[in-house]
């Protein structure tokens, strides 16, 4: 046993030392990862404190995306229970039982700077557009594994449970309208300007301006999405704690960067697996020779053909 272990270690070390050095020196991933902000990043700024909950944006969203209204709960009116396969955008109400301040919240894709859904998507069906930073879904690449519904910390992508050709539904910031020079459906109808569309930098300035003008009005005097989860392109202002609106406190590091750090380093350039493979081949070749010798001896003793 002692010998074989030593063999394993020495043969791994022989190949490994140069490879490991090359890996540590050459790799950028070992330094802290900085998430680049796309050059023309666009997004939404939603101010929950001025939303009146009219749901005009919900109807406009369905219309802009050519989606039939979700009338499954109420056969007459569009009344989605939550984001679902027909609903990319929804207005919900947070109303605490103790009678303290209530708030509406508009939920749609956050268009994270480092999206967890795209990090997990096996064939890049969910991907971030390099220019605009919009997180889009590609029906020709999606295998329907529903990993995005598990990974998204905001629980946004929804799977179509019925039918032989299911789709993943999520806000894509009405990119078909943006191409025509129009604004996204939800922002074009909002009567109070609670949700506005624009470049992320402009929206961020606007949000900070509002905080400066009304000190104490907003929760923690901060914009949700500036740094949360590595930064998002949908930004939120609210009077009530963000957590109550379904926006969890995730910290400044993005979910993929935080959780897949070691996974990414171990598989960097496939160097460590290749190294392990080379070591294994060496050890197994020796074992195989020894095993065959013994097998042939037994073959002579028993007169029966050796089995591998």
């Amino acid at each position, binding site marked *: 046993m002692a010998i074989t272990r030593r063999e*394993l270690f020495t043969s791994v070390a022989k190949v490994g030392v140069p490879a490991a050095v090359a890996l540590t020196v050459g790799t950028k991933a070992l330094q802290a990862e900085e998430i680049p902000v796309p050059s023309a990043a666009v997004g939404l700024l939603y101010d929950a404190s001025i939303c009146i909950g009219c749901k005009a944006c919900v109807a406009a969203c369905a219309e802009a995306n050519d989606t039939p209204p979700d009338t499954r709960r109420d056969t007459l009116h569009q009344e989605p229970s939550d984001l679902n396969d027909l609903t990319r955008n929804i207005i919900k109400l947070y109303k605490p039982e103790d009678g303290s301040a209530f708030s509406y919240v508009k939920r749609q894709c956050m268009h994270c700077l480092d999206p967890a859904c795209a990090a997990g998507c*096996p064939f890049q069906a969910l991907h971030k557009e390099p220019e605009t930073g919009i997180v889009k879904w590609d029906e020709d690449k999606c295998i329907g594994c529903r990993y995005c519904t598990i990974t998204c910390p905001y*629980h946004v992508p929804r799977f179509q449970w019925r039918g032989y050709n299911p789709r993943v539904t999520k806000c894509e910031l009405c990119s078909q309208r943006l191409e025509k020079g129009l604004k996204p459906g939800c922002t074009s109808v909002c009567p109070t300007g609670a949700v506005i569309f624009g470049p992320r930098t402009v929206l961020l300035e606007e949000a900070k301006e509002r905080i400066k003008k009304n000190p104490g009005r907003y929760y923690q005097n901060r914009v949700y999405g500036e740094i949360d989860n590595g930064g998002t392109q949908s930004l939120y202002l609210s009077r009530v704690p963000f957590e109550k609106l379904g926006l969890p406190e995730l910290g400044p590091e993005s979910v993929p960067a935080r959780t897949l750090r070691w996974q990414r380093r171990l598989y960097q350039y496939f160097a460590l697996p290749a190294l392990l493979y080379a070591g294994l*081949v060496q050890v197994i070749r020796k074992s195989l020779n020894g095993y065959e010798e013994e097998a042939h001896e037994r073959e002579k003793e028993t007169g029966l053909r050796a089995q591998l």
Partner: protein
Amino acid sequence: MSSASMTTPPATPARWERAVPVYGFPVVNGFFLFLLGMTLVAFVLTAYRELAGLGPVSGMNDAYGWGIWKTFNVMVLTALGSGAFAIGIAAWVFRRKRLHALMRMALLTSFLAYACGLLLLGIDAGRPWNFYWIVFPWKWNMHSPLAEVAICMSIYAMVPLAIENVPPVLERLWYFDSRLRPGVERFERKLRYFFPWIIAAAYLLPGMHQSSLGALMLLAGERVHPLWQSAWLPLLYLGAATFMSFGCVAGTTMLCCVVWKRAMDMEVLDEAARITSWLIFGWMGLRLLDITFRRALGTAFHFDRFAGVFWLEMLLIAIGGWMLRRSLHGHQTRTMFLGYVLSSLGGMIYRFSPTTLAFRPNPESLYFPTTIEVLVSLGFICMGIAGFLLIVKRFGILPAPLEEWHSMASYFRHRRPYIRWTGYFKHGYFGEDEQEATNSH
């Protein structure tokens, strides 16, 4: 087999020397037909699922995007089917030579578990026709744990694991007809030339995807209960797969020995039990250390379902490990078998927990598999078992003492001379076959 002969070793200890087909038992019996029936039901329901979509056939919903097809049939059963990986490493890399006796069982159970799991993975996927992207490596998302699992698992099952399972087939061809022998021998020589590379791949790939199965749930973050969610989840998943697969292979072999009245080689079984018990204690130590250092141990003493599942897992695995240690004194096969069953059961719950039992979607929701879901899941397991029963009766898989091979020869020569298709010892075509067999007696 009486209980006395099960618990006490025979006078001359049996030594597993050779893989011998199970002879003298018909393949088609009531149980086999039942398994085929279950498989057929699963196939019919699968056709319905492909037309209707996942919603009408399963209990999956927006909160629980994954049901038992993924979380049980793939995550749990491929852990049981990692025998080719765990026992293979012990036998080939760490040169525990006696464990080679279990290798064919390990390779077969692994192949069946992976094949059935992968088939169900294809059925579970909503848009399986897009799987063709798998042949374009530049379209892979190299950092996605799921891509790693899907790609690595299919390559592993279809290439190294399948090739490792070829020798029993070649052996059967060799015995089947002497005209095939030169060709078979040539093929075997070629195979042996490539074997180190194939076997090494067969250890690297499962090591990667069994750990990536754990990495899958890392991205779910806070939604997995802190007793499970950990940066060490990949390693813990891999560790659970090693002791579970030892339990699966050794336990199945013992069960087969009892059912088909084969002698047990206590030297091999003791060694497997010893290794398994150390794997179990090492794994439990790692898990407890991890939980303690993350300061999550307090949650284990809350009165909720998470703490309950946690203690159930840990107790089952600990008792299983303790029984395996105990069984080493005096070759108590009964204790050993129970130890394997309990520790594997605990491991199965552990592998099942992060995705289902300890998963806390927000908003809170419930998932319970529907009847159709359970029937399809069971149907694919039954298909694997049926395949196992067929293959051990047609190919040399199950280890046995040398006498068993000679008994098989005489059985076919004297009791069933009319059976030609069993292959191993046939009469009529070539006199020299029988001559060889008689001489070796």
